[in-house]
């Protein structure tokens, strides 16, 4: 077998410079989970529908399951592990806990990052804006009410 071609990419992941050597077709989700041991992003539908693998690349929410890692070269990646500042939780994390927006937790990291991207784009979202933005984020446990409530709480605190 020929040695498979490898490429070297540099990213800023959760604020820290990281350099990894990967196959050109490697997906961002696998690079984060397997090479960088950031297991917070989850693999579920693998087809960009459920949002469990959502991370931010230069503040944009992307489905890491279908995002080529080479596309993240030279860019900033934020995963759920980078949300808290040390032991001090991000307001979204705090709001999810307080509202009871977390159950099995498998969608939680994707929900948190999706919400962060929303609030960055639109700091004063309406409830309908939130519902629309969450169309790419599935949760099978909560019925969504408490997730929406948590996001609205953070949005309203910023008004």
């Amino acid at each position, binding site marked *: 077998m020929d040695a498979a071609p490898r490429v070297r990419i540099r990213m800023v992941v959760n604020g820290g410079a990281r350099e990894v050597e990967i196959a050109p077709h490697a997906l961002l989700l696998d690079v984060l989970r397997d090479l960088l041991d950031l*297991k917070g992003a989850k693999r579920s539908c693998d087809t960009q529908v*459920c949002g469990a693998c959502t991370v931010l690349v230069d503040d944009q929410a992307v489905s890491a399951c279908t995002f080529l890692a080479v596309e993240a070269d030279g860019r900033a990646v934020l*995963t759920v*592990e980078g949300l808290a500042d040390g032991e001090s939780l991000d307001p979204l994390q705090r709001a999810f806990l307080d509202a009871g927006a977390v159950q*099995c937790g498998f969608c939680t990291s994707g929900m948190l990052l999706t919400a962060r991207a929303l609030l960055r784009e639109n700091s004063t979202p309406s409830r309908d804006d939130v519902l629309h933005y969450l169309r790419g984020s599935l949760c099978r446990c*909560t019925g969504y009410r408490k997730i929406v409530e948590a996001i609205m709480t953070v949005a309203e605190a910023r008004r």
Partner: protein
Amino acid sequence: MSVRPLRVVGQSVPRVDGLEKVTGRARYVTDLVIPGMAHAKVLRSPYAHARVRTVDVTRARARPGVLAALCGADLTWCEPYYGPAYRDRPVLAIDVARYEGEPVAAVAAVDEATADAALELIEVDYEPMPPVITLEEALAPGAPLVHTGKPQAGIFADLSTLRPEPGTNVCHQFHFARGDSAGALATADLVLDETYRFPPVQHVALEPHAAVAVWSETDGLTIWASTQNPYSVRVELAKMFGVSLARIRVIVPHLGGGFGSKTYAKLEPLAAALARVAARPVRLAASVPEAFQTVRRCAARVHVRVGFRRDGALVAVECDADYDVGAYADIGPRVVQKATYTATGPYRVPHVALDARAVYTNTTPGGAFRGFGVPQLAWALESVLDVAADRLGRDPVELRRQNFLAHGEEFAPGDTPIDGKLEESLSRAAAAIGWRQAGAADRGRGVAAMLKASVAPSVSEAIVRLHADGSVSVLASAVEMGQGTRTVLAQIAAEVLSVSLAQVTVVQPDTAVTPYDQTTSSSRSTAMTGRAVQVAAEDVRDQLLAIAAQSLGMAARELALADGAIVGPARRLTYSEALALKFGMSGGELIGRGVIAPGRTAAPLGGSTPFWEMAVGAAEVSVDEETGAVRVERYVSVADVGRAINPLLLEGQDEGGVVQGLGHTLLEEMLYADGHLLNGTLLVYRVPRADDAPAELECRFVENADGSGPFGAKGAGEGSLIPVSPAVANALARLTGVRLRDLPLTPERVWRALRARSPRA
């Protein structure tokens, strides 16, 4: 001891695993990395029904990096069949593949890419056979048979009388009767004779099934599994591999949702077989499409004949329910008989004849799914009640109230008397939806009720350890899958032992460490496992009181626990001090034991339900007459829970149940054509999104502390889901005059029905 007010129980404390989950630190099975771990992939049948003439894995096995390649014929060294009702399911197809997606061969390799590539090298010679996909096809005279051999019974005592119908696809029948239903129907003032259909749907737990298995000479088999019942998995694996129970260790890390899909063995047998052959740890992680090929809800066709007196009294119910249990029985026979036993719902019905059949088809095996067969039957009965109300000129709320079983009333001889107050749930739900107030002209309202038994008999055991520093470990095997059981068990222990929640750690299930618990399903964990934890904590409490009584020279009854200390008149001893007194040093611990095992009874299913789950749902809907799209604008669920140990968690669970119920009500159905599942991915199988949920969703509780669980609690979590379909359809009927009897209520179905509707007066 005086009765003191509850401190922790009844409080909406934050979930104990919340921090791990919002920081991404919680580890699920697929996050585990075991040194030397190999990765498995599965080759699945492309046919719904085919003879498997030969499977050649030679080339796959020879490929560099492949550590094991197996087909059914290789499994001569273990018992290759498993299943909780019948042992009818081979780990890998043997001679026949019975549904599209059935595992036929599997590979373990150094990485996933190598395993995938090796699957391409496996050659299978199939001879396609005619499949039976629908109930009608499976029940037709002379239908092709899904199974031809004599089935072996599985592990459930109350299925010891499995009744297959030889020479047909019926793998189990259930019959329950009292009174003279035929006579009562003949003399009833109103008889409704209707048929309802409930579709096959998938759980779509966001975490698909996964397992990591490893064998060692000393410890036997260790398996990290995404399972709701590690002890049922353990007994299956012990039987298959001829290993003692003590040498099977099932560990359950965080679970990414279950809803019934992770009850009983699923991927664990295959992962364990591969690990044995590979002599390495093996990780087997299903994709979402593979989850659709692993288990689903049993579809059903329910034919009911319901008789009423003119005054609205229910006099008779006859029900013939056929459940499609798919290619392997899984727990389907139990779903069928347990649900059918309560087909009359929460109503007093003197004359009853209930018959059900579990029917094999060449589709994904049907198993447990939140509601366990009851949603299918409630869909029929609760719809019929509204049809009857309309025909009798009665208010649907009042018709239900008139027929409800009362608190303390017998459901069936030998079974637990009704332990809740349905009329209270109904009144609150009706008031919250504004039943008596005029609604908007473009909105319709509907109600529905439910009653469900929990599994019986069942066993839960717990151990509570009080350490030398006053902290507490709770050892129990209820699986935390999102519902909040770890938090609830911690609250119960903290309450009894009068310590803060931060002092209590609930250990994750591990059959080598945490004691026996039958299953995390059937809404039983709070009532059964929680009660075991309460008893174990009381055992520790009594030991503390005895130590203090002796050392202080007082009677135990003069003492009480408060804030981590044993307190008497003018004296106080911390737990640390008490343990130091007992052991004469700063070591040692107190161990408390709790065993809840009510045993078999004379009840019709062999055990008396530990509680009745009861709830009422009320919906307000609108419909777009141009498209047929139904929107649930408001929804209220009121569940009779005895006591909410943690109201916020319970509310969250019930909200999730309502929205999951909206899935099969409006959106979800696994669609088959020519034997192939057409929509087994999330690209085309639509589960509810945030914008599908009702704009107003309220989940409330009736709390009369009348349950047999800790502090008067009963089980909860399934009740909110079950009334959703009939409540929505009843609301739609009241709004439009259109009665639909097939789920889901897709825009096309609704639009066609609206078009076919005769002009209203």
